[in-house]
């Protein structure tokens, strides 16, 4: 299923998308598969699986530390695709930084993503200006390159981005890096409003909008789903893993129960709108 088809299917069920992010290999590759399964049981619609980079400039301290710990534990691009391929029963997108894509080779990276069942790529340090080569490779493999729109994105840039966007658009809710925030940014509504206005003037189906950065509670998810097509939660999962992935088997079991319950509590909010 393509990402757009997934959003369409959800819409027909009168639901919004719940998108959950975890860093692959945090705390270990084996754990990632189990955590992903718990999220799937909890009802996650799209799993955003992070391929960690040594220098993640768009991420806050939580995901930064998870990336460091994953790399220390031996995560690499080959293992990442193995882990991703083993996760089934959910739409998968890969979030990583451009250098890792570049070093594997654009064509090879997209090919390996497709083989692992990944249908979209999110590359936070690849703005629309630099995206042409990767877009070409993505087009050959029916893989979506998910673009980001931020509160500082001008209408002119927004039009350029919407021209090339496929899958969904990742709407960054605030000025800053990833990480939990107490309340939802005030920038979300006006930003979505601006995107919708531009979209109205275009003669094609509107692309789904998913909001991320600082979304960490059921209340945030509900508020986001009132205006957008999906909500993305990342750091809150990472923090839960960090805090509860103790050395004992019992800790691990409890973590998986908690992840599943947390996912359920977030997914539930996506069914309440409209």
């Amino acid at each position, binding site marked *: 299923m393509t990402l757009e088809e997934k959003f369409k299917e959800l819409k027909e069920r009168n639901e919004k998308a719940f998108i959950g992010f975890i860093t692959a290999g945090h705390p270990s590759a084996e754990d990632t598969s189990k955590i992903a399964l718990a999220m799937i049981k909890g009802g996650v619609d799209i799993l955003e699986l992070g391929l960690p980079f040594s220098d993640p400039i768009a991420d806050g301290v939580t995901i930064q*530390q998870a990336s460091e710990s994953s790399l220390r534990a031996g995560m690499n691009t080959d293992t990442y695709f193995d882990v991703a391929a083993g996760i089934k029963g959910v739409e998968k997108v890969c979030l990583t930084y451009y250098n890792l894509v570049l070093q594997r080779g654009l064509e090879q990276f997209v090919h390996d993503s497709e083989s692992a069942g990944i249908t979209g790529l999110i590359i936070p340090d690849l703005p629309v200006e630099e995206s042409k080569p990767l877009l070409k490779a993505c087009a050959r493999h029916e893989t979506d390159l998910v673009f980001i729109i931020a509160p500082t994105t001008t209408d002119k840039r927004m039009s350029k981005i919407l021209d090339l966007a496929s899958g969904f658009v990742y709407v960054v809710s605030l000025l800053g890096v990833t990480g939990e925030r107490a309340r939802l940014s005030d920038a979300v509504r006006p930003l979505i409003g601006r995107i919708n206005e531009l979209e109205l003037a275009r003669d094609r189906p509107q692309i789904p909008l998913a909001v991320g950065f600082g979304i960490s509670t059921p209340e945030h998810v509900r508020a986001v789903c009132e205006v957008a097509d999906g909500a993305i939660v990342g750091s809150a999962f990472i923090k839960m893993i960090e805090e509860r992935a103790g050395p004992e088997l019992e800790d691990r079991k409890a973590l998986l129960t908690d992840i599943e319950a947390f996912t359920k509590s977030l997914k539930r909010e996506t069914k309440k709108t409209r």
Partner: protein
Amino acid sequence: MLSKPDEHGKFGIFGGKFAPEVLMTTIEELEAAYITCSNDKGFRSELDSLLRTYAGRPTALYFAKNLSEMCGAKIYLKREDLVHGGAHKLNNTLGQCLLAKHMGKRRIIAETGAGQHGVATAMAAAVLGLECEIYMGTEDIERQKLNVFRMKLLGAKVNPVDSGSKTLKDAINESIRDWVTNVENTYYLIGSVVGMHPYPLMVREFQRVIGKETKVQILDAEGRLPDTIIACVGGGSNAMGIFYEFLDDDTVELIGVEAAGKGLETGEHGASICAGTEGVLHGMYSKLLQNEDGQIKQSYSFAPGLDYPGVGPELAHLAESGRVKMGSTTDEETLNAFKTLSTEEGIIPALESAHAIHYAIEEAKKKAGEQKDHLIVVNLSGRGDKDIYTVAQVLGDRREEGYV
């Protein structure tokens, strides 16, 4: 030959703007403001006046007589160590702080490795009445305590960075995160010819004064252009600063010297051009130290200003095209040059600059047999006061030298 980036900010295949979307509008604004200011007479004369009366420009071009006699070539030193603050860094920070002021941004953030750029930023911010915060790796804070204290005295806030390798690259990551968060009121002042366009262009233009002065001074002293110009390369700002004015002068050989650290073969070095591969870091496509997957490796040099796993895109381009020749110098060789310049000329060079001095001595000896009066200019980019503890520590470990 004079290289200019294209409209995408690329020098050949290098450079570009690989930045998070949240910064792209600001980067566009910065580029526009820079173009306006650099064409504005008022801006230029304000900057010139600061460079003259505050920074102490023009700096001397000194004929190093003793060193020349020792090596058998004519060696001149461009004395950037005499710039206020002790390094060429202030040329750039004055330019960018003035630009920030014109853009109406009151808060300056910067990264620093050795602390020289941090000190130069703190100075420029102080003199221009701007707020200043510096990001610095905890590892660097430990080895450059003196500069941390100087920054604080100059009124800057120093934010320790404890992530990753706790050095320059992580300080840059943290600065970008701050910038992303406070983009509306904050100016990010990059200290070298690295990062996303327009920084490599802008920093080179602000450092270009080094080469402009050198050209006039060497013609005045010798009546001809030098045969060779040598500069050390970390990010590449002092090298681009002195090279740029000579790019079209085909008879002038340009040599950049990277940090070979403990030896290129050990993997512990900072030689991104000599031993690196192409990739994207900190907003630019350039030569990097990285593993097969593209994870950035930790660089190493005992000269913190060269301890960076990337290099400016314009320099990567000029090296690839063959216009600039690249070499590298180990810690050990550098230490000898550090001592030689101190005892022969009474100048204690920065460890960074001592890399170029070593290379110049070797080059001079090589050329002495081939040609009479081979004329070499070395960019002495900074003074070595900041490094005396590092050097004392290294020498102190060797009892026979009697430094304990």
